[in-house]
């Protein structure tokens, strides 16, 4: 094994070890953050913000669907068409309206009388 190969293996070992170490440190730092200011802030405001956008531009759905779960940007300029909201093009989160069943079927009506037995409506 030549010197160059040995050097490459050493470089590779250091590189992989450094990567694992930094990932572990990053994980640890996020574990500590849990009890930090984020919790206090969100508890205070009752939960504000959910998506990868810093302000509610165009509509609220991507900023926080709790505030407005309707994507009204698809209503204009072309109704039902493509959303021109800038948050719809390149973010890493994407909230869409969750369909909630609002259909209620009432109980079946009384069977209608047989033909010829109907009473006139004015009686």
């Amino acid at each position, binding site marked *: 094994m030549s010197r160059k*190969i040995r050097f490459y293996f050493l470089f590779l070992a250091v590189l992989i070890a450094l990567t694992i170490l*930094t990932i572990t440190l990053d*994980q640890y730092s996020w574990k500590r953050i849990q009890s930090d200011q984020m919790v206090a802030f969100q508890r205070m405001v*009752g939960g504000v913000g959910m998506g990868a*956008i810093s302000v509610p531009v165009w509509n609220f759905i991507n900023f926080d669907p709790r505030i407005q779960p309707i994507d009204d940007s698809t209503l204009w300029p072309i109704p039902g068409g493509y959303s021109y909201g800038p948050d719809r*093009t*390149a973010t*890493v*989160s994407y909230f869409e309206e969750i369909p909630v069943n609002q259909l209620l079927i009432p109980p079946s009506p009384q069977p209608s009388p047989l033909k010829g037995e109907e009473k006139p409506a004015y009686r």
Partner: protein
Amino acid sequence: MNKHLNLLFTAVENIVRNKVRSIVLIICLIAVLFPFITALSISEGIKFQSLISVEEGADIYVTMDYFGSNAPISLDYLDRFRKMEGVTKVFPRIVGRAYFTNRLATIVGILPENIPKSIHLAQGGIFHEKGDVIVGGGLAKEFHLQPGVRFSLSINTSKLLRVAGIFDSDTTIWSANLILMSFEDASEFFKMKGKATDILIYTRPGYAPFLAKEIQEKMETSNPDQIEPPLRVQDKVLVKRYFERGFNYKAGVFTALYTVAFALAIPALLIVSGFGQTERRKEIGIIKATGWQTQEVMEMVALENLVISLTSAPLAILMAMAWLKLFNGAFIAQFFIAEIGLMAPFPVPSRFLPLPCFFAFLFAMVLTMVGSLYSTWKTATVPPVEAMR
């Protein structure tokens, strides 16, 4: 075992000998993996903050439903909700938006008693007087706001506000451009007295789904003579569904764009890593002529790819980490977090999880394997004389 080790040493020797080819290949892989790792880590960072927002938020959010959209709710509902069994806390909230000169800001109005004493601010303190507000670190930095500065916004010029405090920049990404004020001030500011954007209900554990159903059903039938628009009730289960669906990569445009990028990277790497390179063909021809089996040639190339991937994936991870942690994702974070500009006014959240990093390595392996195995096999199966020609 010795044979495989020797093949590994030969593979590394090949990488070291063909410096230009190896460096170009590693740069290409880093160029492909860097945005991928960056996006995944930012996504994980925001996901983490978003989960805190969901978990620490209310159990039930109630608004009015005007023509299918959320609408302001009357404060008359507060007492009715408070009387319900299982409810521990009820408070109204106003969330709106307004332009702070050219910068869009989120306005939040809450009851002053909701502000915990433990809240840490970068400057100033919590509001004590009428008109006091706490502004986000991003707004304060951009407009040089200090505690004590008075301002008004065009939405209601008669409402004079005073900066009482400034949020710490690392609170959350959503607090950077936020103006927090008392509920009363927010009502006056938006000229919506007696109304809230939503009413937040906190319940005892396990009560939320039943209460949500009860509110939806009973409140609407409690006074049949009075015609009121329906209520929209969102409980934590629904909010968690938003969260789960919102961070599903399949739903994002990002995945589609990246699939195209990966698809384009394969032919690019095919060219870079050997296809059509006469030097490489000659090399394979020579080692075949000295008695190497096709299987051994393939193994050597696979090991070469493994070493290249093991070099480029960690390099891409370290570079992405350095760019996000040291330079706060300058220039690139705006592609993943909308409306932050070239330099984010808050620490860009990024979380490097082991699994996406492992995926990055796998992608590198797939790309290099697809780019080289077929061309190597094709060269290795022809007579050595022809390969060397």
